[in-house]
């Protein structure tokens, strides 16, 4: 993958000039309890200087969007390993639009077949990270794309 190395300071954010770390919600929607990936990435993002809120298991799209609003999140990272991504993503993205959270970067990781990636990207999930993605790639992706409104299609997947 290629990542352009733009600076990632707070002043890129359209609504704020205050420098603060990127705030990330790591969420596990659906019923699956496989939380290894979610926990590892939460720690990696925290070690990379971001503020991380981990929702815990079995969160509905409504709960996730409400957490993003309350926490003033810059990024939502969804971890799904059950195959329910095609059901969860449209509901979540609709709620995001309804609440005016269009500027929040939404990314997803888990067991996601290649065939589903274009559809998820079309829904506005800007990064889809399949098994084997390094923590550094995800950190870099968030640094580049958080708080940038332009829906660029950079990322690990075609």
């Amino acid at each position, binding site marked *: 993958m290629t990542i352009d190395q733009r600076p990632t300071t707070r002043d890129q954010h359209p609504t704020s000039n205050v420098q603060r770390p990127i705030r990330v919600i790591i969420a596990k929607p659906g*019923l699956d309890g496989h939380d290894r990936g979610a926990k*590892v990435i939460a720690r*990696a993002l925290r070690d990379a200087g971001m503020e991380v809120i981990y929702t815990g298991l079995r969160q509905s799209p409504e709960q996730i969007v409400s957490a993003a609003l309350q926490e003033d999140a810059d990024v939502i990272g969804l971890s799904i390993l*059950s195959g329910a991504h095609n059901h969860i993503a449209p509901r979540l993205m609709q709620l995001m639009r309804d609440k005016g959270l269009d500027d929040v970067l939404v990314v997803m990781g888990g*067991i996601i077949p290649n065939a589903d990636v274009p559809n998820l990207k079309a829904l506005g999930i800007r990064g889809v990270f*399949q098994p084997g993605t390094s923590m550094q790639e995800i950190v870099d992706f968030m640094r580049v794309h958080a708080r940038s409104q332009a829906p660029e299609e950079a990322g690990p997947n075609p």
Partner: protein
Amino acid sequence: MAPAATDKLAAAADRSFTTISGRPVEPVYTEASVAGIDPATDVGEAGQFPFTRGIHASGYRGKLWTMRQFAGFGTPEETNERYRRLLKAGGTGLSVAFDLPTLMGLDPDHTLSIGEVGKCGVNVATLADMERLFDGIALSDVTTSMTINSPAAVIFAMYLVVAEKQGADWARLSGTIQNDILKEFIAQKEYIYPPRPSMRLVTDTFAFCTTHVPRWNSISVSGYHIREAGATALQELAFTLRDGIEYVQWGVDAGLAVDAFVPRMSFFFNAHSDFFEEVAKYRAARALWAKTMRDRFGAKDDRSWKLRFHTQTAGVSLTAQQPYNNVVRTAIQALAGVLGGTNSLHTNSLDEALALPTEEAATLALRTQQIIAHESGIASVVDPFGGSYFVERLTKDLEDGALAYFERIDRMGGMVAAIEQGFPQREIAESAYKFQQAMERREKIIVGVNDFVQDQDTPIETLYVDETAATRQIDRLSQVRSGRDAGEVHRALDALRAAAQRSTNLMPPILDAVRAYASLGEICDALRQVWGEYEETTVL
């Protein structure tokens, strides 16, 4: 992307040699390495205490391991069709994978079930579904393993009622329910109730099986999920065996005699990629269990001493990149399981980092086992690594390491208390993070992922689960609801709630509710109303 050859040489010179669990290994092992290991008491003979070398004196000569491939998807009809094909092809064992709503005790029409029905396994909501799942299959002639935990008592009751309707004698039924709630709290996280009432459900099934279904394995104490969540080999071994000890203790405290239920306890381990460490892990597990049952619990029956286990190759080791490499990984892992003396084995399919397996991929996985069993010659000799300086040293070190964990957990007040304090959860999260860091620093190489990377992967076909399974299951459930005697369901659920508030065995009222066609969700809700639901304190 790949570093220059000189960099590689330099890296090799600096590299510390450790197992995948981070355990340092010596360049060579000699007689001095096994000083202090007593060949008679620590190793012994195959078929004899402490069973380090295996529980059968004849190894696989008498009986090969059971090749038990886990399967299930969509509706009961679709899965029933797959089972009939398997049985027609000469299989005698079934292994049921349930979907997430079933694992969580939720009906398919629950809002949390949206998108999940039939995805990771088959959906079973009522006795009617269970009847369809085993339609045309004589339960007295097959052994059935069911991966079900928090609602295990309910699913087991459904199975028993299907057998009853077929006219099969419960005393002759054989199979396994996973029924291991502790590893759900520790790793897999498909729990419903708080730990203590959950443990009561487990001991109630122990007691019920002892009297009514004596050939049934009432639990499969599982390290598999603990390992998948990131535990090291030692942590997998230690937490699983300590879970086993916890179940025995709760059974004894509930008034059961050790030798009445421990012989029907079975185990389930992971087969990960670090070959020798895995072989040693299984050997250590047998020795630890035998010694603990005899010395800590005073078990006299040698069947209580013998640790029987199923093995599954490591799903977490499979890569989405260069998926054909997964066939090789699985073969090496399966080999470790066999050389460690597994009693039954599931080999993963090459496409499982992407989706549930296709039929072709699942067949190749089974063929891998058959090649090991019939072509490699490995099954002809019992415990061929016995006496290896390296493997004996590793076995003893893992055993000692596990004993140290047992002591820590005992000091915390046992495994339930340790879980409530977040201890095993923290240990595992720490190991998972350390491994990920080691991978990113390229101290641990995963071929195709952080080295030997290819730009273009050959795409492979993956299985798509029919999205109409959910609507079909919801329709079925409403048909069942309109066709049953509502008053009878009501009375059965009231009786179950009342029993849950007392301390009588819960299996009889669950069986009654199942016979009345109460749904899984309704039965689990009745218990939720009494016990509440568990919410974990998240450990990062």
